[in-house]
């Protein structure tokens, strides 16, 4: 009897301690720090992420805050953000500012590899978990650094997997033999070029007849296209930034050259921006990645794409200068990961945050697709199906065509 009572007490003890630990005095606000680039080369990928993140924060604050498990209550979010103007030197200072001066509770990196790069060592040094939105640089994810997790973009090396698979499978069946690769020499597109080259060579079914890098500032592709045409490829992959893709597609139309398969990264991922600058006629029939912004995944947490799009259009009506696109989904999706992390973390300690984020891996499905991290924190769950821009009535639509599991239509490879 006595022993049982004692045992019972003993069993209660840690629980009591647990309760006491579960409710430390809650802060009045939860500080989330991030950077954005309102100008410079990364503005177009950074601002949508930032604007979308603000939608998530406003939604939470309208509900009285975000639920934080260690305090067992909702806490309003305070967003602390600075403009790095696409400069890494400025960004480095500002990340430091967020950590050391503003003492933010959670740190979110700016969009893209370049502006994320400087945050990686700083976050590691200060033992601060870095929510890496779309910095996919291969050097970021190492075994000795637990303070990083990639949210929205898969690492660059797995992006072009389905391009290669499609060409090796359906392409070869339809008589595609020769491939040309033209890429801009920067981290993001160079890595993808290397990856797709590797996939194609490994399969050994296709012949790479042209493989050239050009400076990222290249703005005229007429002669390059002429040279590519001289090699008679069936498929042309142009891997560049938005400005490159605009110039490439325009010059392709001007040149009159026809290739059976043409791929650009931003034809799909920044479709609105490209439509504005290139026009539907020049984009029709080309292939691109299908970004989350144009694909209905079945989320098990958060709104569907349609619901989020409605919220976005309400916050940023047409003409407000904020463009809808994949990066908007990335930003909002990062908010959702934050929300689940805060709802499951054992404490606000940064390693506990790390454990909570990694605990979501494989379990969370958002409007951006499945969320899965490898041991180093790189995103491997997100996928980028291959899509083709096809005319449906009067509108150009991006139709997922590969892999079969995600396909919503059939690829048209022409003659």
């Amino acid at each position, binding site marked *: 009897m006595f022993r049982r009572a004692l045992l019972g007490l003993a069993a209660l003890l840690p629980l009591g301690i647990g309760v006491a630990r579960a409710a430390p005095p809650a802060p009045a606000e939860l500080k989330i720090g991030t950077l954005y680039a*309102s*100008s410079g080369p990364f503005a177009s990928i950074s601002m949508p992420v930032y604007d979308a993140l603000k939608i998530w924060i406003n939604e939470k604050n309208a509900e009285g805050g975000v639920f934080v498990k260690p305090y067992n209550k909702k806490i309003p979010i305070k967003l602390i953000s*600075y*403009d*790095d*103007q696409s*400069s*890494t*030197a*400025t960004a*480095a*200072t*500002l*990340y*430091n*500012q967020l950590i*050391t*001066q503003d003492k933010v509770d959670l740190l979110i990196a700016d969009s893209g590899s*370049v502006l994320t*790069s*400087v945050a*990686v*060592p*700083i976050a*590691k*040094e200060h033992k601060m978990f870095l929510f890496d939105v779309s910095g996919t*640089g*291969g*050097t970021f994810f*190492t075994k000795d650094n637990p303070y990083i997790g990639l949210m929205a973009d898969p690492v660059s090396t797995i992006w072009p997997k389905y391009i290669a698979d499609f060409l090796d499978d359906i392409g070869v069946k339809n008589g595609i033999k020769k491939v040309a690769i033209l890429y801009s*020499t*920067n*981290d993001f597109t*160079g*890595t993808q070029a290397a990856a797709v080259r590797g996939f194609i060579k490994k399969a050994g079914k296709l012949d790479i007849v042209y493989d050239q*890098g050009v*400076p*990222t500032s290249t703005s005229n592709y007429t002669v390059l296209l002429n040279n590519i045409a001289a090699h008679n490829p069936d498929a042309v992959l142009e891997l560049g930034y938005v400005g490159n893709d605009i110039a490439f597609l325009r010059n392709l139309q001007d040149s009159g050259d026809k290739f059976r398969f043409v791929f650009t990264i931003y034809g799909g991922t920044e479709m609105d921006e490209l439509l504005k600058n290139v026009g539907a006629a020049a984009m029709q029939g080309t292939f691109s990645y299908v970004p989350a912004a144009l694909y209905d995944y079945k989320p098990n947490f958060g709104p569907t794409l349609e619901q989020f799009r409605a919220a976005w259009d309400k916050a940023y009506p047409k003409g407000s200068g904020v463009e809808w696109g994949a990066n908007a989904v990335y930003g909002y999706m990062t908010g959702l990961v934050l929300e689940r992390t805060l709802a499951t973390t054992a404490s606000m300690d940064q390693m506990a945050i790390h454990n909570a984020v990694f605990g979501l891996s494989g379990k969370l499905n958002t409007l951006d697709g499945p969320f899965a991290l490898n041991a180093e924190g790189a995103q491997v769950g997100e996928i980028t199906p291959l899509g083709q821009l096809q005319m449906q009535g009067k509108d150009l639509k991006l139709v997922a065509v590969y892999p079969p599991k995600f396909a919503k239509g059939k690829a048209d490879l022409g003659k």
Partner: protein
Amino acid sequence: MPDRKRIAGDLGLAALVVVAMSVAHGVYSNELLLFNFVMFLTLSQGLNLIYGFTGYLPFGYVGFFGAGAYGFALAVMHLHSPPLLALAIAGLAALVLAVILAPLLRLSGAYFAIASLAAAQALYEVIANPDLQDLTKGPYGVSLSGVFAPRLSYFVAVAIMAVTFALVVWLRNSRFGLSLQAIREDPVSAAMAGVSVVRGRMVAWLLSSVIAGLSGGVFAWHISVFYPDTVFDVTFSIFATVFTLFGGATTLTGPLLGVFFLYGVYNAIGITVPQYFQLIYGALIMGLVLFLPNGLVSLLTRRGFRVP
């Protein structure tokens, strides 16, 4: 005796800034912001060495900075040098570049400025080229996390700054420095008075470039992960130039004033409204050139006051 007093004044000001930046590290915790101040103080004075004393304005000053950063990175990556040796290699890289570019000194000011910018961009294109990926990592950037030591590299940066200040003080007060200024005012008469124009310019050019190279090296060490775009960002040249012009070249005070005021304002308001700041910057540059080409300190110097 007044000479000695002047030197003491100059050195006093230099020492004050060096001590202040050392103490600040213990007081204020945004180390990188402090580091950037130290870096721009060094770069502005380095630019001052060549622009203030010879009238040659290298728009491509950032080329030496980048050469230093990559000199440091390559030494660490390929030779596994300890950081201080790598830093020496950074300085050497900039020195070699300066020797290669020395023929540019034959050009007159405007052409020199633009040619040096073109040279810096050409170097960037070489280093960022994917064909050299095995050597430089091309556009994919370098990671030097093995030698990452923010505290030590901060104080090394302060030491480089101190040496730079000492050089400026020396040039301001030595026969050599005075002969340089004579060249700037009138190269033909200076040459007739027996001043070696070529040698004088060359020395200032090499000193100035080594300082930028060391700055770049210690920047690479401090920041440890960077892309070619980071260290060849023309903003480095622009900032150093504007800071120097704003305060007034040829003095020690001028660039200090420029950095503390303008970079201070930049960090206080520029980062929230960058376009407006860029606008003000642009307007400031135009206003200075038109109305105060010798900088703020000229308000005092033209009234006969001596400014350190």
